[in-house]
């Protein structure tokens, strides 16, 4: 390889090394699933979904379960098809948390409301570009911290 080419490669490497500030790596996931409530339970209302890493890459005491990276709102219970961009440098594993907004106020169980169910599932098969899940909303008025790990 000629000196000129080597020099150019070195300059390019130097330039690139001195050029990147923030580097963000995302992993695309096509997520198919089903959101349901328990038999006989009211099912009217929008469904709010939160997508979390199952655990973060923090070291020692800074490691913790869960870490929300995206959220979506569905018109109601039923089939789900969403495309997610998973942050590879934040954590590992995929958890889906959801709750039914029966009264449409955007708040899970505001004072006086006790019947909005929530649920959580860890998605199997991560990492893969195509994943599926099944989520049943069965526990009223709890955040993901009460359902996982």
């Amino acid at each position: 390889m000629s000196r000129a080419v080597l020099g150019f490669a070195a300059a390019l490497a130097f330039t690139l090394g001195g050029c990147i500030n923030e580097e963000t790596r995302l992993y695309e996931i096509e997520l198919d699933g089903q959101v349901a409530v328990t038999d006989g339970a009211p099912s009217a209302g929008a469904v709010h979904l939160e997508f979390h890493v199952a655990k973060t890459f923090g070291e020692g005491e800074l490691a913790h379960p869960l870490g929300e990276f995206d959220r979506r709102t569905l018109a109601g219970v039923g089939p789900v098809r969403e495309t997610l961009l998973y942050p590879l440098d934040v954590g590992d594993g995929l958890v889906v948390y959801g709750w039914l907004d029966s009264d449409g106020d955007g708040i899970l169980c505001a004072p006086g409301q006790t019947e909005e169910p929530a649920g959580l599932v860890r998605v199997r098969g991560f990492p893969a570009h195509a994943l599926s899940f099944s989520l049943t909303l069965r526990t009223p008025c709890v955040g993901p911290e009460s359902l996982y790990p």
Partner: protein
Amino acid sequence: MKTRAATTLGAACALATILGSARVFAAEPRSPFPEHAALDAVGGSPAKGAYVLSAQGGWPFSFLRAQVGLSRRITLQSELESVVGRRYRPMLGIGVRIADAKHLRLTGEFLAGWLFQRGEEYRRGPNGELRFRLAIPVRRFVPYLVLGTRHAFLPDLLTIERASGTETSWSVRHEWTPWATLGLGFALSRGVGLDLGLNYGWVGAPDTIALPGVHLGLHFGGDR
């Protein structure tokens, strides 16, 4: 307590030096040399064939600077700026002498280079600066003002791994630094000068707060 005492002592000594020097030099012939290193350093654009080397140490900004006069009006310059040892700007540029009179020198300078910053946030990328120097030489003293605008461009890289392949894209953030220096140069001789300056570099304006700084400079020049 110690800091205040040391600052007081330093200020008193500087005051005594200036007062003493002023009286001493008042007895010497007036304006012995119209062009000198201190004027070239703080006013910019040394004459054709002349050069000036500057070292300015201070907090938080320190500089190493070299200027060479290419023609009557054009100067080539290089500089390295350091901020508390964590942020560096190596730069190359040209200066243009815009106006020149017995008690006035106005210089415009354009420089380009790179920014390297380490700390909780690393920053690196191309950097450019446009500035103007106004110097008012009066015998050995050169009060001066520098006003400038600096622009750093910080590239970020986004990588997305899809089933169909990996795609990358770049975006660029902009860091703006308005700059001002107010100072006083002093010619010890035609080839040696000092300067004391107050600096304000508002790094990351307008979303940040920046502290003002101060520097003391030593300048060597020649070939006049």
